[in-house]
């Protein structure tokens, strides 16, 4: 990988902080039925972690590990998983019915399908917001002779 991105200090700190961000977001998602948080908040924090990597290391490094096509597919998979959980509730009697056994209160494995729904929503929100931020920030306008024009995203050109 070429040396793009920010300085060495920023890269070093980003390397240290990123696993903690991922851990924090997973804890928000998984404990969403007991403490505040849930799928949406956890997904947004995870996207924040990816954006930190994008800013510190440059986009080729991030796309090497997490290409945009996989992000788009994960987005759709998360939504379809959520819909599948809702339709599975039909087996129990109604749409969105809470099927799985609800354990004792305040445990991790209580409240049936709510934890699975949180995981699906966290997946969808993080992948979806990542795609949106990448596409919005990859716009580069070039001033040509006919006026302004978009640089084709993905090509490497200097301004």
């Amino acid at each position, binding site marked *: 990988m070429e040396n793009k991105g920010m300085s060495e200090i920023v890269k070093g700190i980003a390397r240290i902080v990123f696993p903690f961000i991922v851990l924090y977001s997973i804890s928000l998602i998984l404990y969403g039925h007991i*403490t*505040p948080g*849930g799928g*949406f908040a956890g997904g947004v924090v995870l996207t924040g972690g990816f954006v930190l990597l994008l800013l510190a290391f440059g986009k080729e490094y991030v796309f090497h590990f997490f290409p945009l096509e996989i992000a788009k597919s994960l987005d759709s998979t998360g939504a379809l998983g959520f819909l599948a959980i809702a339709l599975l509730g039909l087996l129990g009697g109604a749409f969105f019915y809470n099927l799985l056994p609800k354990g004792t209160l*305040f445990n991790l494995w209580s409240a049936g399908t709510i934890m699975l729904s949180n995981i699906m929503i966290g997946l969808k929100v993080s992948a979806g917001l990542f795609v*949106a931020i990448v*596409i*919005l920030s990859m*716009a580069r*306008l070039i001033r040509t002779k006919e*006026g*302004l*024009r*978009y640089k084709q995203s993905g090509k490497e050109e200097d301004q």
Partner: protein
Amino acid sequence: MIIYILVALMFFTGLYGIIAKKNIIKIIVGVNIVGYVTSLLFVLFGYKWDGIAPILTQDMNYSQFVETAVDPLPQALVLTSIVIDLAFVAFLSALAIRLFERYGTFDIDKIRRLKG
């Protein structure tokens, strides 16, 4: 009482941004502010003075919890409303980028080719 006056002030600031400003980025900021104000008003309607957060922990008495906790339903609805406003602002930002490419300016007085 004074809280509602402050909320109304914030709302009129955001509304001023949408109606009276010419730059489209400032209109987007106004949209953002009005979105926040609506969510804030919703949460404020469910608030009880000197109440606790509506989270049940293990060593709490149920009846005392029901009496002192803040209403949790508006907080769930505000979560939905925040996501919808996020979608609005993301879409308007993408539109603003594309508009700059086509018209060369962010000024909405000049973005006016449709007439009649």
